[in-house]
């Protein structure tokens, strides 16, 4: 595939850009933040996403979606990042949908319509410690009756308390540390024994701690194969990772553009500060980092869409690079803004907070650099 967007993709970009800028700009985010919204996003906006077709962007056309790929999802995510638009898009329409695409028809029929309509939100319940370690999942699913009984604890379940269903990874066999023996379950939010506690994060997103206290699910709650959940999990995680990377390209680019504008207007010592060569060189370097991030993310998306064997390697590299570049963008952004960059009133600090959250999402840059090394054979 050529590493440029085609006409359809460019059109999608235009429409996503216009939509986010008019319907969900940073002022929208501020509004929901300042009202202390318990969801951390607007259900009305989620409906609008549906009207735009975004919610079903990865759902096959035959099932009512747009049948597009990671590149297209990434186009929407970049605009989300640029505007800090709060929504369940990444978890529900990207990560969860990729998992559900591997589920049986009954389950897809159960959840896709609500997602398409912008009425359903799905939480991803994977993490059990403070760092991303999917192979260390300890949550247990014992055979019980017609199905399974789930016991354990999950955390960092973004929008968990706003979710209608949680995708829970649990161990049906094998030992902690093994990738075999995991199974993914669709667990209804109202299931007996399931309790959640929401925590507001630095970027004002809401994330839940989830307790599974012998939650009984039927056999039809299994997504994919029993004991073979790693395949589904990997697909879901990689979609979430490359999606987070795309969103970080948007966050970093937004922060960078804002900062470059500031450099061109702010005066100090009788000069526009953008005239200072030391800042110019840092700006040019940052631009190169962000362009690099944009490139590797596009590469990873296209390899995923092709089902290429190297997709996993590139997704890891993309998540790492987007994380490093976006983090540089927000750090340089705050520093170059000087004092006002430290104030809540200016937007640059909001980008710094969002970067932090996205960097942690499904493995940080160091985690993924380590995976790159492992996949590269050392």
């Amino acid at each position, binding site marked *: 595939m050529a590493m440029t967007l085609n006409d359809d993709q460019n059109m999608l970009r235009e429409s996503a850009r216009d939509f986010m800028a008019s319907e969900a700009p940073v002022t929208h985010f501020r509004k929901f933040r300042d009202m202390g919204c318990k969801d951390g996003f607007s259900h009305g906006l989620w409906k609008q996403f549906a009207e735009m077709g975004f919610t079903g962007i990865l759902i096959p056309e035959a099932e009512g979606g747009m049948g597009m790929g990671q590149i297209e999802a990434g186009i929407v995510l970049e605009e989300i990042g640029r505007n800090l638009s709060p929504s369940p898009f990444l978890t529900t329409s990207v990560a969860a949908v990729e998992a559900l695409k591997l589920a049986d028809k009954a389950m897809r029929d159960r959840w896709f319509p609500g997602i398409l309509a912008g009425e359903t939100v799905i939480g991803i319940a994977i993490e059990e410690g*403070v*760092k991303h370690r999917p192979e260390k999942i300890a949550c247990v699913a014992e055979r019980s009756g017609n199905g399974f009984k789930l016991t354990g604890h999950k955390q960092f379940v973004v929008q968990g308390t706003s979710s209608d269903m949680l995708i829970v990874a649990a161990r049906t066999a094998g030992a902690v540390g093994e990738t075999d023996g995991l199974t993914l379950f669709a667990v209804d939010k109202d299931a007996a024994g399931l309790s959640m506690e929401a*925590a507001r994060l630095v970027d004002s997103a809401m994330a839940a701690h989830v307790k599974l206290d012998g939650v009984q699910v039927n056999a039809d709650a299994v997504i994919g194969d029993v004991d073979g959940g790693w395949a589904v999990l990997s697909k879901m995680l990689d979609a979430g990772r490359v999606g987070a990377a795309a969103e970080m390209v948007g966050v970093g680019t937004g922060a960078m553009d804002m900062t470059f504008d500031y450099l061109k207007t702010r005066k100090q010592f*009788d000069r526009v500060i953008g005239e200072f060569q030391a800042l110019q060189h840092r700006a040019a370097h940052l631009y190169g980092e962000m362009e690099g991030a944009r490139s590797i993310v596009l590469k990873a998306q296209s390899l995923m869409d092709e089902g290429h064997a190297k997709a996993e390697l590139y997704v890891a590299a993309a998540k790492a690079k987007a994380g490093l570049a976006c983090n540089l963008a927000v750090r340089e952004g705050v520093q170059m803004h000087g004092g006002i960059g430290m104030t*809540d009133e200016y937007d640059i600090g909001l980008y*710094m*907070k969002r970067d932090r959250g996205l960097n942690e999402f499904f493995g940080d840059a160091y985690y993924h650099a380590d995976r790159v090394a492992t996949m590269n054979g050392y």
Partner: protein
Amino acid sequence: MSELETFRAEARAWLEENCPAEMRTPAKGDEDVCWGGRNFVFQSDAQKLWLERCVAKGYTVPDWPKAYGGAGLSPQETKVLRQEMAKLGCRSPLNSFGIWMLGPALLKFGTEEQKVHYLGQIARGEIRWCQGYSEPGSGSDLVSMQTFGEDKGDHWVVNGQKIWTSYADKADWIFCLVRTDKTNKYQGISFLLFDMETPGVTTKPIKLISGNSPFCETFFDNVVVPKHQIVGELNRGWDVAKYLLGHEREMISGMGGDGGVTSIGAAMKAVLSEEPVLRAQMALFDVENLTFRAHGERFMDEWKTGKAHPAYSNLMKYVGTELNKKRNELVMSIGGTQALEWESERSNGGSKARNWLRTKANSIEGGTSEVMLNVVSKRILEMPGA
């Protein structure tokens, strides 16, 4: 040495007798800090008692002359006192911009009358001070400030606006740079002191990205300042300010974290052992941290013996603040998803995240990293050019 050891024993005995047990536990937060001032409400009897005893002994400002409320200790004795306080875990009896910043400037530039009057108040914690330097539009470029004091014979009438005034909403008095000559950029600024309750002074807290509001915008609308409230000469306030900024930089340059060389890695071993690349970042950070501690030690030893370059504190400020930012990035990485929490009890009210965001100001306040590098390049390395 033996004389110093005698002093050490005495100081130790005094502290053991006079420092209340409650004041020997680590301060848990802002509410445990005694800032003094007209409106300060003591959080406990012990806090009040500890301040009063220290004031009586001169230990709020141990190295100031006794005439101005100090204990007249030598630098060596002061260091010993600090060591003994640290050993017993004694809290600071009084936090004060008056002690840290204005005091040294008054000692150098103040009249005898000013010293007796203001230094005494500072030492006793009676007046809480804030600092009025920056203005909107004059960040690094301090001398471009616009706040103007019009000469009215025996007083000035000050109009203008300051920004980044620490705790201005809680302060009693301000020390403030005011333009008193519009024709001379550098030598047209005076260093004035005035009461924050003077008619025409208003403040507005600035909410930071950390969610806290330690700074204010401060507005002056026809504020009357008597002429005897100037420190140093008319239009030479820049000299006072520069002297004071040097002090501030020394202070901030010591901010590379916990002031010690203890690695934060050990406590995080469980996470780091599973994250080899992150562990490597931590290892390289520890090398930098040990380096900075040794560097600071060497700088202080050279500074005390007059061997350090006068602009060297700019270098330390740059290195120390950048290091502290890096440390907090690592704390956030190691803290992972729990460190992202902003309000939960589990995260101690988001303390890691809030501290991390707070440190981003380190390389801006008291002179940006960019200004520090300019100064090092020009004054120490003697690079050519404007």
